[in-house]
């Protein structure tokens, strides 16, 4: 990473060129260029943030931004920059007005079919009125009903979805209002919008950071970057350059993150949209999201049904012309047939079915924001899951201990049941005391009733873990602390001369912020007035202080064997992805008895030849239900990919723990270790699992990423940045997968938005992520996703049944009309009665199919392939129209003939009497027995026919669902 940034990457400041550049020479070209510009912008946003300000020395920084590090900018200069760069605010994306959204609901997808139907109806009515005075109003009614149905369902789905899509607003909520800047040596409170690049800004605990800052001086400053990086622990900030990656270095603070404690001063290096947060916000709101699978399915369905309707309509148009009808009549028939093919009730049925499932899912902790997303989860073939909080419990817990040369396992389950270990050992007693006393964490007051594991604590995650662990498995920490008052301490985050070392070990041992070591001195509880010095910290550092070790309560001089044992234990625990702490102590000689004034700045007491006690390792353990859920996903053919900002070893350990890397599968590195050959010699194809590091991912081309996604079934991405998450999602989508992404941080929001279904966390999730997502897991539990998948698949199956059910009634509705045309029999089923059937009696049973329970193998089959496994395919249409529809139509006709025959009109006499039957003034229609009927009599009759006709249909249909294969497999 060079100073100027690599080719193909951009510094944030270059992203906002002055608007003048955009102006093209010709008006015509301008728009095109603008669009192109926007596209390249998006591409650039997907790349990594490249900053080099954190590497600059303070002098360089001062020159770069031409600012005095003590006095700040002059107000005039600030004004100038403000004018040039614009205000420090997030630009909202061009919003679509509400009425456009409403119209989209009203005219999109399925509705368009019904609208066309309605228009055709009005057209037919118009023709009839124009050429015949005494025309029936059937077509008018039909048209109106269709229009009303579309409008009602349109309003319904608009209402359902109006609540979502407030991404940019939620981002803006994160931005602070005021900022404290120093201009021309004067501190002043200004609006955040007026902060400019180069401003000298001061922040203190509780503030939101007003822009991206390069820190120049700090006092115990800690920031909470959780919204940006997903790491929940506050992180220390100092003016020193500690990491190549700007997201990890200590001397940069990010726009809209929180300063938790301390104060800091820094120079603004980016404002508004060019900040890291701004880039994420722009990226998120600017992403173009693809169609949901169900929308694609409905489109496919419309094509099919239009094809069928058109084919039938045109062929009968031709036929009726051949039969000698006038062209006008033929046109009316054509329209009639096309409209009769439109399943009027289906739109409402689908909407209601989806809503019902959405309701059911929300009872199972999956809150669905977008109705169509209900089904998406069922089609999901890849889940990119976040680790922290989703797969894990999101709290550090003591997992292992090593003392007396043995590794003991602690209980990490959520309920804290079972497992005990050698609590009788004296070493355990001492270890527990150190862990309890040399610990700054404490329980927050008033939670005595809660189980220990659930109590809230102050202090960082590892100390809290220790505190809870000791409280649980040893005795009350509070009592211990009372009996052994603390006399002096050197805490984690002190800014003393040990600082550089801390950094060293922080990186070596992967221990966060200053966990290198902590020392405290306590009064002995036995009343001997003596003091004991206790220390905990990174194991190898602790070992350096020790000359003896404790075994079963007795001190032995440190020897090579012990060191070897220690190394093995340390490696083993580290290999489990756990955070390891070492513990040691020293009984101070009597010269340091009670009353001695310990000075922690200029150390006036011995700090060597301590006695090593043991190791305690901690991990954020997986949730209990997760391994099972992952197993279910796997058997359901869903690939689970872990994407985490955490370290590869921890990620891998958790992945193994929850089954994302299944037992027996190994990565290329594992294989190399087993075969004892270098990694380069192993065949990466043989390794099904892989752990990809974010820094490797950064240099990969998309082909390489495709290669990885294709060839490995078990993938873990570690140390990934927000942009990389997005790249991974896009990679999966390139493979044709339907991707679900879980995430909670702001950093996840681009991926959440891009994913086919974004799943945000209800408890730990940030507001932004919830806005960007399609679904919210109310209990943050991965296992709920599995329930969601099941529900999604179920609704797909059930929708199939509903649609098949609705479609079958099309044939018994159309055939009477066709026979009416061809054979001139009295029309058995009128338009209005068809409407009653479609929107009345047929809708309820169709909706009831949404309550069908799942097939037993619903979670055992592979996810459907969106390309050829459609909601409505030829097979379903063939079955609904060709087979079941035909049976129903025949049954209907049989009833029709029976009723007419039993009342006097024998079937043979019905042929050709259409005109007389329909004629209002033909009032002596003679039946087969010589009786004469007036027009009204005929009409009353039709009502009866319809009733019977339909009730018979219902009977045939109720048996039908049993036979309807829920999911026609591959075509024969």
């Amino acid at each position, binding site marked *: 990473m060079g100073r100027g940034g690599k080719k193909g990457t951009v510094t944030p400041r270059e992203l906002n060129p002055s608007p003048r550049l955009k102006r093209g020479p010709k008006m015509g070209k301008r728009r095109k260029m603008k669009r192109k510009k926007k596209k390249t912008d998006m591409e650039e946003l997907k790349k990594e943030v490249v900053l080099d300000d954190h590497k600059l020395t303070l002098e360089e920084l001062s020159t770069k931004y031409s600012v005095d590090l003590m006095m700040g900018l002059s107000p005039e200069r600030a004004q100038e920059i403000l004018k040039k760069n614009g205000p420090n605010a997030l630009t909202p994306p061009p919003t679509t007005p509400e009425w456009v959204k409403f119209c989209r609901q009203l005219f999109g997808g399925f509705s368009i079919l019904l609208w066309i139907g309605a228009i055709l109806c009005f057209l037919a009515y118009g023709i009839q009125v124009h050429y015949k005075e005494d025309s029936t109003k059937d077509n008018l009614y039909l048209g109106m009903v269709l229009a009303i149905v579309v409008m009602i369902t349109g309003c319904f789905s608009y209402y359902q979805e109006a609540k979502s899509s407030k991404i940019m607003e939620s981002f803006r909520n994160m931005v602070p209002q005021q900022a404290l800047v120093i201009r021309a040596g004067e501190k002043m409170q200004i609006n955040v919008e007026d902060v400019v690049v180069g401003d000298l800004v001061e922040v203190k605990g509780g503030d939101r950071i007003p822009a991206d800052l390069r820190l120049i001086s700090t006092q115990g400053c800690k920031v909470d970057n959780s919204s940006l990086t997903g790491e929940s622990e506050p992180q220390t900030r100092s003016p020193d350059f500690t990491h190549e990656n700007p997201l990890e270095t200590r001397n940069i603070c990010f726009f809209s993150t929180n300063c938790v404690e301390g104060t800091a001063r820094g120079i603004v290096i980016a404002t508004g949209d060019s900040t890291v947060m701004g880039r994420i916000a722009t990226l998120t709101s600017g992403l173009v999201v693809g169609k949901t699978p169900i929308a694609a399915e409905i489109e496919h369905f419309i094509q099919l049904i239009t094809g069928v309707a058109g084919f039938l309509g045109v062929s009968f148009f031709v036929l009726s012309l051949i039969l000698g009808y006038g062209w006008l009549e033929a046109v009316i028939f054509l329209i009639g047939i096309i409209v009769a093919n439109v399943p009027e009730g289906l739109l409402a049925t689908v909407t209601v079915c989806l809503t019902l499932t959405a309701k059911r899912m929300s009872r199972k902790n999956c809150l669905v924001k977008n109705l169509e997303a209900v089904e998406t989860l069922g089609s999901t073939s890849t889940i990119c899951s976040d680790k922290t909080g989703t797969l894990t419990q999101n709290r550090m817990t003591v997992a292992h201990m090593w003392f007396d040369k043995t590794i003991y396992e602690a209980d990490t389950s959520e309920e804290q049941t079972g497992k005990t270990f050698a609590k009788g050992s004296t070493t355990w007693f001492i270890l527990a005391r150190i862990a309890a006393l040399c610990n700054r964490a404490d329980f927050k007051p008033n939670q005595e009733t809660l189980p220990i594991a659930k109590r809230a604590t102050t202090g960082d995650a590892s100390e809290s873990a220790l505190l809870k662990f000791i409280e649980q498995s040893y005795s009350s920490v509070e009592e211990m602390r009372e009996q052994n008052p603390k006399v002096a301490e050197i805490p984690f985050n002190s800014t003393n001369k040990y600082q550089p070392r801390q950094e060293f070990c922080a990186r070596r041992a992967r221990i966060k912020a200053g966990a290198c070591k902590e020392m405290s001195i306590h009064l002995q509880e036995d009343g001997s007035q003596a003091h004991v010095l206790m220390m905990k910290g990174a194991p190898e550092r602790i070992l350096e202080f020790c000359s003896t070790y404790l075994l079963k309560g007795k001190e032995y001089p440190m020897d090579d064997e012990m060191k070897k044992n220690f190394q093995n234990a340390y490696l083993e625990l580290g290999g489990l992805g756990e955070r390891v702490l070492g513990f040691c102590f020293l009984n101070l000689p009597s010269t340091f008895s009670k009353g001695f004034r310990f000075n922690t700045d200029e150390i006036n007491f011995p700090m060597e030849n301590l006695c090593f006690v043991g190791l305690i390792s901690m991990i954020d353990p997986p949730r209990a239900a997760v391994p099972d859920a992952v197993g279910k996903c796997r058997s359901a053919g869903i690939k689970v990919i872990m994407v985490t900002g955490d370290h590869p070893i921890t990620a891998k350990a958790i992945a193994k723990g929850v089954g994302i890397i299944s037992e027996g599968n190994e990565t290329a590195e594992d294989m190399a270790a087993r075969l004892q050959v270098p990694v380069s010699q192993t065949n990466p194809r043989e390794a099904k699992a892989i752990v990809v590091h974010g820094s490797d991912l950064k240099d990969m081309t998309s082909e390489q990423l495709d290669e990885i996604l294709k060839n490995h079934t078990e993938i873990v991405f570690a140390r990934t940045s927000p942009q990389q998450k997005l790249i991974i999602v896009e990679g999966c989508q390139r493979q044709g997968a339907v991707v679900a992404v879980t995430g909670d941080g702001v950093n996840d929001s681009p991926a959440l938005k891009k994913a086919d279904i974004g799943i945000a966390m209800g408890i730990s999730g940030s507001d932004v992520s919830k806005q960007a997502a399609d679904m919210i897991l109310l209990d943050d539990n991965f296992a709920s996703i599995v329930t969601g998948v099941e529900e999604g698949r179920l609704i797909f199956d059930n929708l199939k049944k509903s649609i098949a059910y609705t479609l079958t009634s099309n044939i018994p509705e159309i055939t009477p009309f066709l026979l009416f045309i061809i054979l001139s029999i009295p029309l058995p089923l009128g338009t209005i009665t068809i409407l009653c059937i479609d929107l009345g009696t047929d809708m309820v049973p169709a909706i009831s199919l949404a309550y069908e329970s799942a097939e037993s193998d619903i979670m055992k089959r592979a996810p459907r392939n969106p390309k050829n496994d459609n909601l409505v395919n030829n097979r379903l249409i063939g079955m609904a129209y060709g087979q079941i529809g035909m049976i129903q139509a025949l049954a209907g006709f049989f009833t029709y003939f029976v009723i007419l025959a039993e009342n006097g009109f024998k079937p043979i006499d019905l042929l050709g009497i259409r005109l007389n039957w329909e004629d209002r003034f033909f009032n002596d229609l003679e039946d087969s027995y010589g009786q004469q009927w*007036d027009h009204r009599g005929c009409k009353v009759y039709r009502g009866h026919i319809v009733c019977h006709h339909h009730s018979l249909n219902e009977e045939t249909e109720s048996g039908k669902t049993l036979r309807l294969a829920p999911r026609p497999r591959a075509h024969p």
Partner: protein
Amino acid sequence: MTKKEKRSFNQSLAEWKLFIYNPTTGEFLGRTAKSWGLILLFYLVFYGFLAALFSFTMWAMLQTLNDEVPKYRDQIPSPGLTVFPKPVTALEYSFTVSDPESYKGYIEDLRKFLKPYESEEQKNLTACSDGALFEQKGPVYSACQFPLPLLQACSGVDDPDFGYSRGSPCVLVKMNRIIGLKPQGMPRIECTSKSENTATLSTYPFNGVIDLKYFPYYGKKLHVSYLQPLVAVQVSFNATSSTTNEVTVECKIDGSPNLKNQDDRDKFLGRVVFKVIARA
């Protein structure tokens, strides 16, 4: 952008071609010959079976039918009234007195209709006694005579033009046949013109009486040469001077408590309204 579209168009064209005939798999429209054969065979057998089933059930149903009387007769408890001849448009008799072509159709229809009522045709029919229902036990059912002269001026005997050429046309009013209908009381057809002064109405037979001897009717098959009782209405306009005379006539069944003549939904139940327009 256009390049891409073009390619995709070519691609889709190629896809279509492949769909219509795929030389590698021998698939035609997505199926191989064997698959097509099988599916056609299936539908052939399936529809064949359905057709057979349908025919059988229809046959069985027809077996249950009585040839003489329909199974249900509750749909028409009370007869409707109709007029004859049937006007060209709706229920408007419109003609020009001076133009015989304009009423030729009516006269022909009437003649044809009254053919069975001529005396030669009625020779074999029974001369029933007036004023009582003519109930029969079978197995042979005889029909009562309806002497054409009962219709007097409208019988076509004296005036072969049924009054049309004189501007006072005859219209026949008849009650629909209903099997087993037995009217009570003294049924008669009463006709009134909506505007008393323009035209006077004469009904034949006298007072529009329908004799009970024509009831009950036993159906087409049993009651072979049954003659429906008729009532003729002659419309005579008072003011012959004006060029166009127009009158609306309403006829109702009256005098029989079990024959309804008022139904909101059925305008022809026991009543009929027609219009006569005679141009000079």
